[in-house]
């Protein structure tokens, strides 16, 4: 699903984001990406999302060489990736329902047509009764779960998460991680970046460890 071949990303000014990184995440796999802040986790995710382009090397996502995608194709490419942000990035000018419906509306569904799938996604994260509320009225953990519902509502084959538990207490973090596991169990490929090593170790899944842009460890713990 995701393949990095000797990928290097240097930023203007000489800062190295990633250095000669290669790995392969198979379809249906779940993996955690760890490392200190600044180790290159965000850079790696941005490269997958086509927010950045590698300085050298090639990146394959879903069977596509990402360097061959035209600018106009990028939005359609991204619709196949569910993205979970650290700070959930919900829009506070609309309801929980409308936040979750956003990817479906963008993809060409009317508000009416989305209703079923939005409720299904909210049900999975346990917030079905909150659909009419404004996200600002929810707790941090609930907001993050709304973000998760938005990421999965259009049933993407790949889910990426950038520090999804960064602002949550350990119990809530474990809950969120279990949700990722449950998505993986129905066949979704999942890549979660997290600096919470203890939590990641407890999950007993594949762990990719980055240090200053280098992939220093790739271990299967199964």
């Amino acid at each position, binding site marked *: 699903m995701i393949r990095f071949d000797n990928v290097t990303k240097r930023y203007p000014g000489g800062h190295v984001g990633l250095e000669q990184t290669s790995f392969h995440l198979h379809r249906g796999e779940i993996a955690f990406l760890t490392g200190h802040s600044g180790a290159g986790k965000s850079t790696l995710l*941005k490269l997958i*999302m*086509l*927010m*950045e*382009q590698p300085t050298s090397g090639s990146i394959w996502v*879903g*069977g*596509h060489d990402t360097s*061959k995608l*035209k*600018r*106009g*194709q990028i*939005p*359609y*490419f*991204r*619709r*196949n990736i569910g*993205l979970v942000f650290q700070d959930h*990035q919900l*829009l506070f*000018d609309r309801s929980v329902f409308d936040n979750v419906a*956003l*990817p479906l*509306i*963008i*993809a*060409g*569904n*009317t*508000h*009416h*047509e989305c209703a079923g*799938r939005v409720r299904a996604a909210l049900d999975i994260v346990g917030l079905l009764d909150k659909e009419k509320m404004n996200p600002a009225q929810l707790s941090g953990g609930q907001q993050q779960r709304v973000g998760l519902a*938005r990421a999965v509502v259009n*049933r*993407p*084959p*790949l889910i990426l998460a950038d520090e999804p538990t960064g602002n949550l207490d350990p119990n809530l973090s474990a809950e969120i991680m279990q949700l990722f596991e449950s998505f993986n169990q129905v*066949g979704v490929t999942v890549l979660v970046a997290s600096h919470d090593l203890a939590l990641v170790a407890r999950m007993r899944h594949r762990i990719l460890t980055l240090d200053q842009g280098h992939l220093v460890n790739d271990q299967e713990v199964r």
Partner: protein
Amino acid sequence: MFPRKSVRNKDGSQKKRSEPTAAKDAEAERGAARKKATGFSMAYLKSLHRQVAVDSLRRIFKTPFASFLNCLMIAVAFALPAILVLLSNNLQSLGHEWEGQPRISLYLDNKLERDEVNRLKVEARDDPDIDQFLYISPDEGLSDFQERARMKGVIDALGFNPLPGVLELTPRNGLSAEQLNELLRKYRVKEGVMEALLDQEWIKRLESMTQLLERFTLILSVLLGIIVLLTIGNTVRLSVESRRAEIKVIKLVGGTDGFVTLPFLYMGMWYGLGGALLALLIILGVLAGLVSEVLELAALYGSSYTPQGPGFSMFFSLLASGIFLGVAGAALSCYRHVRTIEERP
């Protein structure tokens, strides 16, 4: 774009995702992307546009005072040239009204006998193109001249009456300039007519003045149109800036530039429309303030002239240019700013 096991759509036909097998090479991929981009159902487009239109209007009303000032600025920029157009239209119709009553003055030979003058009078009377005529004999002309110019002494010193007899002809209404000139030529060659003049100079002057005014209005319209474009563009740019985070999220969940831009285009449209409507109010206000004075002035000149207001054509062209400039200003602004949001490869 990605290989998928199942396609879930209620009415599968139009919003179909591209299937994996055929979409291996880039060319097919681009085609699929294009098909998706244009393949939205009518029901979807309708509901999206309705929702976005209402939402952008609601955003404008959220800051009523600032929005009103914006509209007012646009309105003034629209009202100025519109008032000038009205002015030149009115001057033109004023010209047309008086153009119907030009006079041809025939200056007659002093040696003309009375019955020869009478013959000319009869000819004028029988001419279907002549409405009225008035003969001013040399004596009448002299006394009139002395009365007005108080130059009795000068004329007396001459010892004779230098003034010719004048036959003033009023052509019937509705003759074109060409027909008038033909009439002029016809009487100029009559026996006993020394000179024939068409009293039309001031109309020509009025015409060239209105032409100048029209040209000036055109230039002013273009300049003020640019101001409207920039005003709306700037307002939209500020709005794009304030919704930066939202735009970034929409782009990351797969929103195209078009999807991101749409609310701002509607915003520009509403501003343009609001400005045009406000401009109409300004124009009507200006007219209401002027109309009584104009009527008074017209009455002084013995004219039943009434000024013309903005007609339907002006109403519609104001609204149309408001919408056009609004959308264009927003599009120009978005083209530059929406693209720069989000770090791009």
